[in-house]
C-alpha cells in the first residue's frame, strides 16, 4: 500500500514510518503540519493515510480538518486518525459523509504492530477501525434511534464489535460463538436496520454508520 504519514513529533513519525515499512508497505510522503498534510493527500492520493489530530501551526485540530477537507474533495479517501484522546464528536464528524474508509484510534494502538497494520489495511479496504472506547461510550448512551431499538442485546454487541472494525471470525472469537451464528445475527440485524443490498462490506459500513450516528 502507498501510505502518507502526518505527525508533528519527529520521533513518533519516524517510528511509524519504520513500523509501516517493516511490515512491507510503502510510505510515499510524510507531513508535519496541517497544510502539508492536505498537500500530500492531494498530490499522492494514498491508499491510506495516518494522520495526527493536533498539529502545527495552531496546535489545534489541524490534522483532523485536513483529513475532512481532503475527504470532501476526494470522497472515500481512506484516512486513519491517530490521537492522544478520542472524542465521539470527532468520530461522528469523520463518519458523517457516510462513505466509510475511516479509522480513529488512540496513539497507543501502534504498540501492537499487527493490530495497527490490520486496522490500516481494513481502512484502506473501505472499512472502519474505531477505538473501543468510542464504541463503549456509545453503548453506554441509552437512547438508540433509527431502528437500533429493535436490536437484541446480542445483536447490539455484535454491531459494537463490527464498528470497531472486526471481521465475523474475530467477532465470533470475542463472543465465543461460531462464524455461522455471527453471520445469522448480522443478517437479521441488517434486516432490522433496513439494509438490504447484496454487497456485504457495504452493508457492514452502513450498519456501523447508523450505529455511530445515533442522535
Amino acid at each position, binding site marked *: 500500500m502507498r501510505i502518507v504519514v502526518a505527525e508533528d513529533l519527529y520521533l513518533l513519525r519516524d517510528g511509524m514510518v519504520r513500523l509501516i515499512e517493516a511490515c512491507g508497505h510503502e510510505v510515499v510522503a510524510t507531513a508535519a503540519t496541517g497544510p502539508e498534510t492536505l498537500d500530500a493527500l492531494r498530490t499522492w492520493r494514498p491508499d491510506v493515510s495516518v494522520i495526527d489530530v493536533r498539529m502545527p501551526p495552531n496546535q*489545534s485540530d489541524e490534522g483532523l480538518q485536513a483529513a475532512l477537507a481532503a475527504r470532501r474533495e476526494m470522497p472515500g479517501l481512506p484516512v486513519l486518525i491517530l490521537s492522544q484522546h478520542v472524542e465521539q464528536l470527532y468520530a461522528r464528524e469523520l463518519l458523517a459523509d457516510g462513505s466509510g474508509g475511516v479509522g480513529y484510534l488512540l496513539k497507543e494502538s501502534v504498540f501492537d504492530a499487527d493490530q495497527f497494520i490490520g486496522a490500516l489495511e481494513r481502512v484502506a479496504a473501505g472499512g472502519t477501525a474505531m477505538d473501543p472506547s468510542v464504541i463503549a461510550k456509545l453503548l453506554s448512551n441509552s437512547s438508540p434511534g433509527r431502528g437500533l431499538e429493535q436490536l437484541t442485546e446480542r445483536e447490539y454487541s455484535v454491531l459494537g464489535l463490527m464498528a470497531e472494525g472486526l471481521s465475523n471470525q474475530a467477532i465470533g472469537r470475542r463472543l465465543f460463538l461460531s462464524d455461522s451464528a455471527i453471520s445469522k445475527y448480522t443478517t437479521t440485524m441488517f434486516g432490522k436496520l433496513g439494509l438490504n443490498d447484496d454487497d456485504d462490506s457495504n452493508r457492514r459500513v452502513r450498519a456501523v454508520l447508523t450505529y455511530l450516528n445515533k442522535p
Partner: protein
Amino acid sequence: MRRLGTWPARVGVGFVRACAVAAVSLLVPAVWAAAAALGIWWGPGNPWSWTAPFAIVCVGTLALPRPVCRTIRFLVARWAATVIPAGYRQGGPVTRLSTGYWWNGFSYERSRRDAVLDQKMRLWWSDPANWRDLRFTGIVPFTAGVVAALPPAGVAAAVLGFARPETAAHLVGGLGLVVAVASAPYAWRPVVPVAVRFLRPSPAMALADRVDELTAQRADATVAQAAEIRRIERDLHDGAQARLVALGLSVATAGKLMDSDPDQARALMRDAQAGATASLAELRELIRGISPPVLNERGLADAVRALALDMPLDVAVSAATPLRLDPPIESAVYFGIAELLTNAVKHARATRAYVTLTRDDTGVIAEVEDDGRGGAGIRTGGGLAGLRRRLAAFDGTLEITSPPGGPTRARMMVPCESL
C-alpha cells in the same frame, strides 16, 4: 371576581405599609416638631426654655438617622425584594496582645470592653456612611414620607370629620376616606426608588467594598490554584511517575534475562507494554481534568458538544458559533457546565438536559436546564458554592432556580469583552 377579592387585601396591606413608611420617615421631623412644641409651651420669649428642646433636636438628629436608614433598608428588602447594601465600615478583630492590652486597630485599651467601645466610636465618627444617612433622613420626609402620610392623614380627617355634627365636616371626612382608600395601595411605593437613589453606597464606599471583595477573591483563587497544583503533583507522583519507574524496571530486567531466559524476558516486555498503555490512560484522564483537549482544539461550543456526547443522559446543545473566549473564561464556563450536568445525573436523576450558550455585548451566558427532581440549592461548602466562587473570580454570576420536583435551571453569566 378575583380583583374584587384581592382589592380590599391590597388596600389593607398598602395602608399598613404606608403607615410604617410614614412613621419611620417622619420620625426625625416629629422629634423637631415635639422639641419646638415643648419650647413654645415653656414660653417662647424666654431663651432658657429653648435649651432642652435644642438638646433633644441635636441628640435626635445625630442618633436617629442610622436606625431610620436600617429600618427603611429592611422594609425595602422585605417588600420590594431590592437589597440595598448598607456599606457601613466594619471593625477589625479586637485582639489581646502579649502585654495584656487590647488592640482594636486604632488604639490600645486596658480591657476588651473599652477596646470594642473605642473602636465603635471611631468607626462611627469616621464613617462616610453617616453623611449619606443624614442626607437621606433630610430627603425622605419630603418625598416618600409625605406621600406615605396620605392614607393615615385621610383616615384621621375622616375620624375627625365624622365626629362633628356639621355637614361640611362630614364632607371633608368623606373626602379623606376616599383619598385614604384610593391612595393606600400605592402610597408606600415611592420609598423604594427614593431609597435606591439616595441610600446606596457612595462611590468611595462602593470602591472600598469592591477592594474587600477582590481581596477575598484573590485569596480564594490562590488557595484554589495551590490545591489544584498539589492535586496534579499527587496524581503524577502516585500514577504516571510510579508506573514509569516500574516500566523502566521491567525493561531493565528483561534486558538482563534476554539471553538466559527469553520466555521470562518476553513476558516482562508484555508487562512493560501494558504498563505504558495504563500510564497513557492515566495521563489522558489527568489532562482531561486540567484542560480538556477539545477545548484547546475547538473552543467552548464544540467542547460542550463533546462533553454532551460523553454524558449518560440526553443533552441537547445549542450554541452561537463561533464562540471563542479568553482561555481562562472558556475553561471556567466549561467546567461549570460539566459540574451542572454531573449534578443533573447524580442528584437530580435527570434523563434530559438542555445547554444553551449565548454571547452578547456584555458577556457569555451559559444556561443548563434538566428535567430532574429539582431541589438544588447553593449551600455553603457545597459544589455549587464552589462553582459560584470560581465564577466570581471573573465577576461572573451563578443563578439557580430549582423548585422541589424540578425542573432545575442554572444560569451562568461571565462578563467579557467582545473579541
